[in-house]
């Protein structure tokens, strides 16, 4: 009962914040709202017992990405210009039809938390039954991420590394040129 109440409160706040993000023109306020949005989703993940995901969402979504967006904001304008006026009917129709199709698609899905759902029948039972025994790690998420799916995680780390290299190549060059000038 209390779970449903928390879900309703969190989801309605998410919707309110999403609308506020669309309506607000001050980009600083939008970044703060994004941060609150991430924190609320972290709470939602916590209600779903996905503590690892909630942890990541709170640290990355609400923390680091907010700081990075603020750093970016310092380089650009802090106000969004008013969009040119146009009729909203065609976009509204497209969005409504897509939403209707998405809702129609969820009707066929197995009920939430159903252990017989196809997604839970493939490799998950083996991880749950053998995971603690085979890896000796009580936290199943760590066992799957680091051991069973170790190759995937290597790919993820490489993606983070590549992102760092990309940012350095695109934005990091200016300082070096400055230093060269100083030497001359």
């Amino acid at each position, binding site marked *: 009962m209390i779970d449903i109440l928390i879900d309703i409160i969190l989801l309605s706040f998410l919707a309110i914040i999403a609308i506020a993000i669309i309506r607000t023109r001050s980009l600083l306020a939008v970044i703060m709202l994004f941060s609150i949005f991430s924190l609320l989703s972290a709470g939602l993940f916590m209600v779903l017992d996905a503590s690892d995901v909630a*942890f990541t969402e709170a640290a990355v979504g609400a923390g680091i990405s907010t700081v990075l967006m603020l750093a970016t904001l310092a380089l650009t304008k802090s106000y969004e210009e008013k969009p040119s006026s146009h009729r909203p009917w065609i976009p509204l129709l497209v969005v409504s039809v897509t939403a209707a199709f998405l809702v129609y698609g969820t009707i066929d899905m197995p009920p939430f938390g159903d252990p017989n759902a196809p997604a839970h029948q493939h490799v998950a039972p083996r991880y749950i039954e053998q995971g603690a025994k085979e890896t000796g790690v009580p936290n199943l998420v760590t066992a799957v991420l680091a051991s069973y799916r*170790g190759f995937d995680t290597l790919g993820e780390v490489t993606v983070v590394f590549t992102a760092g290299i990309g940012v350095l190549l695109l934005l990091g060059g200016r300082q070096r040129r400055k230093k060269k000038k100083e030497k001359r």
Partner: protein
Amino acid sequence: MKHNLILRVIAKFLIPIIVLFALYVQFHGDYSPGGGFQAGVIFSAAFILYAIVFGLDTAERVVPPRVLQILASIGVLIYAGTGFVTLFLGGNFLDYNVLAEQPVAGQHLGILIIELGVGITVSSVMLLIFFTFAGRNRP
């Protein structure tokens, strides 16, 4: 923000706690929620707080970007290197069972090492990105 006394005092008080918590998340990830990725982000958050309060130049003296670039590559190297060590010990790529006498002990060791690699890379890349973005604004 050099003259903001309250911020400076609170930041000095908070930064060691944040670093300690990051290390806890890093090395206790086998037993509780967390792991290299989250730990790396929290670790870098401590230094970002330092940079915001004490200035970018001071923070870059504490952790030079050059060192961060090397650390970011070392993390990936540790991870991929573990895979090659298991290859040479006769197992498959990233098959930690061969790292120790007991398969379970090998798994434990392997997970600890690769999580360390993940933590090092994530924290240094996050800091690098922050330094690069914030450094653009310098006059």
